[in-house]
């Protein structure tokens, strides 16, 4: 069920710029007559270590895009982002810092 994810991590000045797109309806209660379907949790890992943990609501837009900044960073660092929605669907993607 889970649609594709896209992620890009680029070295900025002193930090790594991370942009991640998730394909998800993010349907609200109002849109679905009380059967919302939305991502609840997301996790960002750098080289296997969790650095950001997010909890989000149905008020995040459809096909959510998030930007984060990671301290320092080097070319080739492995970034992993995963999410979990309120129906138990989950997805993850991985990229290396470019």
């Amino acid at each position: 069920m889970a649609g594709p994810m896209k992620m890009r991590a680029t070295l900025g000045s002193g930090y790594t710029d991370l942009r991640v797109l998730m394909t998800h309806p993010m349907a609200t209660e109002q849109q679905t007559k009380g059967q919302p379907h939305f991502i609840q949790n997301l996790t960002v890992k750098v080289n296997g270590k969790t650095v950001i943990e997010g909890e989000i609501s149905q008020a995040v837009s459809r096909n959510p895009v998030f930007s984060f900044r990671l301290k320092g960073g080097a070319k080739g660092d492995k970034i992993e982002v995963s999410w979990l929605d309120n129906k138990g669907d989950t997805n993850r993607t991985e990229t290396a810092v470019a």
Partner: protein
Amino acid sequence: MIHRRRLLQGAGALLLAGLLKPLAAFAAWNKAAFSSKTSADAMKSLGTPSAEASGGIVIEAPQIAENGAVVPIEVMSKIPGTTSLAVLVEKNPYPLVAKFDFSEGALPFVKINAKMGETSDVRVIATAGGKHYQATKEIKVTIGGCGG
């Protein structure tokens, strides 16, 4: 009979543990905070009942959002030691939009796209060293984005 019941209970617990396992990688979702209908209640449930106004929180967002379904909100804290940022849209049916916890290795910065039902203040709560800080910014919405 007692044995059988115990056995069944044990089996049930094992099954449940197995089912919950894939979820264990994620922190618990703060249901109380996300189902709060006022930002004051949401803040209580987040463990940040009161917060001091701070100029160290930067909210970058359009003054006027034409489309309430996608309002870009960029949030950054300059307060040293910020470990958590929460974003609330005061007038949404459920004000709390998102909460992020930052560990060593991440900067307290996040950009999200949020839905806004109507013109509202956006409130950001930052937690640093056990203290809570807040800042607000009004975003005007011309077409609401919650009903879809």
